[in-house]
């Protein structure tokens, strides 16, 4: 089941915090009794335990950054040239400054299709991991 928390930059932190708090303590104790080092405990127990949540967090953050617009727009307007142009800015410039209506619609549709495919793949992986 996907997490109910989403959107927003800091929510990744909160998601991971909640996941870390949910790691099974008895496993950690067992590892400590068996004399596992901190690194080993971390990589063999904690990381696998929070992996599904991490995938979701990366997914949310990735989607967030995929549509990055405002910061780049304010700082460079995509310049110099088109070096820092994101897909959002590309569509915006095509649509609202050059008024290429149908071209913009095509870009938007491509973005939706691409993102939906990525999202479905990622969600399926999460389901499998559970």
């Amino acid at each position: 089941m996907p997490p109910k928390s989403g959107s927003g930059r800091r929510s990744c932190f909160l998601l991971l915090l909640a996941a870390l708090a949910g790691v099974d303590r008895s496993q950690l104790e067992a590892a400590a009794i068996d004399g596992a080092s901190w690194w080993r405990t971390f990589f063999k127990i904690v990381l696998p335990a929070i992996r599904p949540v991490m995938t979701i967090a990366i997914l949310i953050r990735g989607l967030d950054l995929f549509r990055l617009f405002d910061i780049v727009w304010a700082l460079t307007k995509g310049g110099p040239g088109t070096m820092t142009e994101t897909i959002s800015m590309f569509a915006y410039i095509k649509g609202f400054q050059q008024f290429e209506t149908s071209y913009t619609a095509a870009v938007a549709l491509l973005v939706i299709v691409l993102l939906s495919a990525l999202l479905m793949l990622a969600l399926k992986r999460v389901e499998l991991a559970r």
Partner: protein
Amino acid sequence: MMTLGRRRGLRLALRLAAASALTLAFMFPIYWLFMISFKTPEEIYSFPPKWYPSHLNFDNYAVLFRDGDAVTVWNSLVVAFISAAIAMSLGSICAYSLARFATGGRHLANWIVSQRMIPPIAVVFPIFLLYVWFGLVDTYVGVILLYTVFNLPYVIWMMRGYILDIPRALEESALVDGCNRWQVIWRVVLPMCRAGLSATAIFTFVFAWNDFIFALVLTRTEVATYTVQITHYFGGQSNFWAKISAMSALGTVPIFVAMAFMQRYFVRGISLGAVKG
């Protein structure tokens, strides 16, 4: 040889030092933002940089209020607040229906949340064309409507989760005692998920508050939000950093205030929602 106690103390001290250093590093940009907004132009451009202004200087803010630019913060506040309120009230009821009556079958909720994943840029152009037809560009109604629509899926999804966590027996006993459905929602369900309500409300508010691309496209002058106004300053007159920082500071304060009020519910609501996943 160090004793065990001293070693533990040393380790604790190291940890605290690392935590403080990290906190400082994360707080610094906010500190710097507020400091710049109080500086004079000479101090902003001075090298080596001045770590704090020589005196509290409100000129940068005064300029914003004199030019009437500060009204954009008010616009943001109105738009974000009203759209969050509408989205919350409609969304909670819808979420209740989805959670208790499984309206629309098993997959409707997933479809609804998938709407939230659409990148704004993909939908903003068709929406703009529609708004031109309806004459909604640069009106409060248009912007509020858009933010409400964009926030609704998120509200529905979050609230559905919180409502599912409430034991059904509570509602049934209220029904037996003679409440109707509306009273059940108002008296039992909503008070039970107060933490979730606050967390969701904050998120919807912050989304509308921080949004840039919709505001950039759909507002001109009448309801321009502060985010759009900030970008107008970039590369403007010589002293544009002062205006940018003062405006950003104005835009940051309401978020701090909202968080201060809601923090108690906020962390709890978020982590509850996430752990259950």
